[in-house]
């Protein structure tokens, strides 16, 4: 059986089109306000409609959607295939590229391959170790590290591979990266951000952070050192169903530490689901109040309409134009 290469009519989920190119949106805070990106849950099978369900839920509230690269070191539909699907479905993809599974040739090929399909936003990261996943016996690659990958992507955008071989025309890449404001050595994290900025990163999706003081310190240091506004900060907000997910993350995701009182607040609440939402809303409001923060990155583990609620509680405009407006512009 073969899957249709175009989304079937019943899987066309996105009404309207993205309100703008990610690079343009991030560049002009006055005109566009906060920018929302979201992580598309990984997909394993089921054709384009499997992706469509997620995109339909996320795209009305997110300006761009991350196509992940084997998140948590587990094999899934590839980053490039996901990014193409997201784009076909009418949303704006961000191609995640991780250093764990591929050497420099494969990483370069993924980036130019996605660019061939018009996918130009790229987010470079080291990637969890293979031991975090379900095939821990795999060979870890890390042929490049993330700052090197960012600079390799910059070379592609300037018109050549790492080898120097020309790429003509050069793909107009918009390059970003990640950083973890809450992992040791705290004092060094902004300097690492600066290194990534120098290599060519223009946005940083920040790891989920349950220490508001550390996030605030990162943002202030980023401002004082000139990292922002050169680079747009997008702190990640996790939308969770309750305290179990908090316990899971703090125990199993290296680099994420959640203080016990935070977990207990959700655990002991009369309505843990609501308490988890309130926590996320508070985090989002706090993050948006910090200098250099241009928006939020949403990791939605609830898979319901919470992202819509968050967007409306934060008073942010819709990410996609209404269908009627769109029909007029076509």
């Amino acid at each position, binding site marked *: 059986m073969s899957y249709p290469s175009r989304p079937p009519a019943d899987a066309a989920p996105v009404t309207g089109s993205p309100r703008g190119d990610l690079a343009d949106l991030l560049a002009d805070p006055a005109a566009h306000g906060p920018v929302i990106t979201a992580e598309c849950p990984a997909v394993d099978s089921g054709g384009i409609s499997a992706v469509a369900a997620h995109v339909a839920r996320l795209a009305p509230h997110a300006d761009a959607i991350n196509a992940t690269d084997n998140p948590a070191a587990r094999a899934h539909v590839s980053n490039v295939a996901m990014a193409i699907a997201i784009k076909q479905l009418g949303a704006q993809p961000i191609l995640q590229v991780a250093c764990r599974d591929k050497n420099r040739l494969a990483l370069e090929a993924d980036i130019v391959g996605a660019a061939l399909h018009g996918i130009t936003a790229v987010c470079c990261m080291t990637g969890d170790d293979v031991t975090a996943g379900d095939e821990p016996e795999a060979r870890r690659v890390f042929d490049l590290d993330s700052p090197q990958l960012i600079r390799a992507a910059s070379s592609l955008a300037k018109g050549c591979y790492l080898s120097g071989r020309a790429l003509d025309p050069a793909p107009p890449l918009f390059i970003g990266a990640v*950083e973890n404001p809450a992992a*040791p050595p705290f004092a060094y994290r902004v300097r690492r951000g600066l290194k990534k900025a120098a290599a*060519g990163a223009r946005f940083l999706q920040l790891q989920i952070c349950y220490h508001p003081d550390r996030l605030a310190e990162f943002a202030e240091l980023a401002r004082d050192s000139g990292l922002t506004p050169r680079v747009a900060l997008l702190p990640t907000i996790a939308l969770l169903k309750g305290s179990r997910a908090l316990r899971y993350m703090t125990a199993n995701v290296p680099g994420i530490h959640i203080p016990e009182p935070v977990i207990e607040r959700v655990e002991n609440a009369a309505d843990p689901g609501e308490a988890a939402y309130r926590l996320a809303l508070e985090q989002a409001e706090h993050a948006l109040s910090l200098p250099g923060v241009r928006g939020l990155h949403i990791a939605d583990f609830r898979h319901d309409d919470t992202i819509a609620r968050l967007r409306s509680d934060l008073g942010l405009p819709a990410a996609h134009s209404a269908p009627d407006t769109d029909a007029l512009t076509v």
Partner: protein
Amino acid sequence: MARLLATIEHVVKKPIWDCRMCGQCVLHSTGLTCPMTCPKQLRNGPCGGVREDGACEVDPSMTCVWLKAHNRSERMPRTLRKEFDDLRPPVDNRLQDTSSWANLLSGRDRVVPDGWQPDA
């Protein structure tokens, strides 16, 4: 001769820095901490997986190599401390098991791919 130098280098640097003979030594800019002992062999700083207690994501029994590198580099002379923030180029895998001393003298360790361009 090159082989002999590599052998001597290995004998000297293995016990002190756990040298992995990458052939392009960067110890001076990494707080005298060998980045090739990082399980991910990262040359440009710690990944986002460093645990709350400073332990390595991959091997929780060891302290993050880059956490040590950062602490040690802060105690180094100013010029070397500044080099900590340099963007170190990708490893040239052809130099594995060759002498970094010989490669330093010949300049071979500073050869980068043609497409490795100055900062954006």
